[in-house]
């Protein structure tokens, strides 16, 4: 739990807020590169950390990320013309370069102003199909963390963004909440191929119901088809959580008794402060970024097999989700919850009653807590250790920033290319840390 005051500090991210100061010290994923596909294409408006920006790609292909409003009279540059290596405001024709240089001021003949003043501009880095920006004080940008999954060309990534109308911490905490997976996502597990399961006294038949949903790996079980062993190899809904702090944040294992005697089922998640969960059992991660205090983007970034057509990947991302609920198009990325199928729930066909797969199910419960959940009301349990540690690291970072230091994860040395995640069955006496030896060095460095 947090006190109401601590909750406010944790959740609010605007300029000048404690968490806002912390988050601005990391590279922040701000937009999809696919939204700025070619030189001089239309600019886009970006809202992150409670501020509005314009992003554009100039004639030479360089990305610009500027304060949204023209510094003359405040018209939005998202209405502007992108041309001849700059973006021009429609109102009075002021023109800006990607670095904020004021190139032209047609209604001001003298050059003194534009020689002495620059428009707000921020560094941009292209990685993993995303444009990452640094919004911290000039000269403080850390080296970009080159995760292995981020170094391939944008064409090799499937990027899908869901905008949710709730505070970002509700989504972020969900991304590191392993104990819900075998419960909320029972319908997904059934479509993937698992069989009957229990949630407390409720026995779920485990027949596939939402046949259209996206499932990891793409293989789905059809009605009448026998369950596949190993899809979710545990009936244990109360995983033991083991967690270690690392230089990049932390990694943890959700450890369940496996159905097979003498074995245990481990899902290892690496959390890279402050936005990215690299999740066991996937080939990518989930990035949660605050747009403002009451909305956030959850961005799934997954590496595609070589040769996969990007349009195919985009189609896969939307598979099974009604376009009235969500779509990958920029104007359709805000999640609108589907109607819950109470008949299917009552008949035991569906556990959660939401079609569309994990991200719709997650969105339903995370937004159901309200626009900004009051954590004074919650009753955490030991299985929430990763969520508890995340909050502590943010609280530590706030204290570090206030005392003039770097936040947690900045200014430390670790090999970002080796940060990974795992989901597998191992012998009951084996240490899960052996599965992520690349983290061993970072763990030592953290001590």
């Amino acid at each position, binding site marked *: 739990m947090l006190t109401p005051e601590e909750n406010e500090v944790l959740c609010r991210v605007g300029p000048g807020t404690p968490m806002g100061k912390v988050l601005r010290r990391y590279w922040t994923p701000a937009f999809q590169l696919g939204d700025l596909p070619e030189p001089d294409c239309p600019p886009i408006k970006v809202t992150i950390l409670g501020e509005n920006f314009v992003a554009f790609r100039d004639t030479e292909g360089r990305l610009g990320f500027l304060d949204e409003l023209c510094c003359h009279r405040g018209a939005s540059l998202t209405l502007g013309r992108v041309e001849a290596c700059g973006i021009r405001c429609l109102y009075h024709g002021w023109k800006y370069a990607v670095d904020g240089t004021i190139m032209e001021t047609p209604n001001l003949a003298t050059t003194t102003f534009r020689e002495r003043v620059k428009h707000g501009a921020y560094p941009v880095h292209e990685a993993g199909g995303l444009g990452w920006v640094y919004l911290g004080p000039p000269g403080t940008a850390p080296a970009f963390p080159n995760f292995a999954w981020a170094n391939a060309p944008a064409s090799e990534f499937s990027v899908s963004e869901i905008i949710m109308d709730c505070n970002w911490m509700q989504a972020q905490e969900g991304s590191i909440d392993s104990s819900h997976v075998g419960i909320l996502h029972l319908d997904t597990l059934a479509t993937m191929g698992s069989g009957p399961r229990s949630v407390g006294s409720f026995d779920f038949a485990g027949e596939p119901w939402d046949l259209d949903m996206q499932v990891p790996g793409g293989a789905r079980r059809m009605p009448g088809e026998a369950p596949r062993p190993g899809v979710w190899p545990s009936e244990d809904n109360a995983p*033991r959580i083991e967690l270690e702090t690392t230089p990049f944040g932390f990694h943890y294992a959700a450890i369940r008794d496996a159905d097979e005697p003498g074995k245990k089922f481990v899902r290892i998640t690496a959390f890279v402060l402050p936005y990215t969960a690299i999740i066991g059992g996937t080939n990518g991660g989930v990035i949660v970024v605050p747009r403002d205090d009451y909305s956030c983007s959850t961005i799934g970034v997954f590496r595609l097999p070589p040769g996969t057509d990007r349009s195919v990947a985009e189609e896969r991302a939307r598979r099974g989700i009604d376009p009235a609920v969500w779509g990958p198009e920029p104007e359709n990325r805000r999640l609108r919850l589907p109607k819950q199928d109470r008949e299917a729930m009552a008949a035991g066909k569906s556990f959660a009653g939401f079609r569309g797969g994990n991200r719709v199910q997650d969105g339903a419960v995370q937004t159901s807590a309200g626009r900004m959940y009051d954590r004074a009301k919650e009753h955490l349990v030991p299985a929430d*250790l990763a969520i508890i540690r995340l909050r*502590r690291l943010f609280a530590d970072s706030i204290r570090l920033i206030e005392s003039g230091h770097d936040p947690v994860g900045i200014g430390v040395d670790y090999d970002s290319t080796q940060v990974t995640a795992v989901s597998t069955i191992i012998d009951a006496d084996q240490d899960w840390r052996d599965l992520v030896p690349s983290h061993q060095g970072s763990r030592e460095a953290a001590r």
Partner: protein
Amino acid sequence: MSVVVDNACTQIWEALDGGATVTSLRVSPAVYEAVAAARSKEVARHYPLMLLGLPLVADHAVPTYDPVVA
């Protein structure tokens, strides 16, 4: 509070790992009062104050940031 909860949770897992049974969480009076203030509705209903599934016990001997699992 985030530090207190994190330390308590870590202790609980260590205790469980060692085969111990955990029955209560001893915290400093300041922490106890902070939880009571945040959970005023539960106090008004005469529910016991609990954290991480354990009943809270105020103990002057317990440092603010180092709760004790018993």
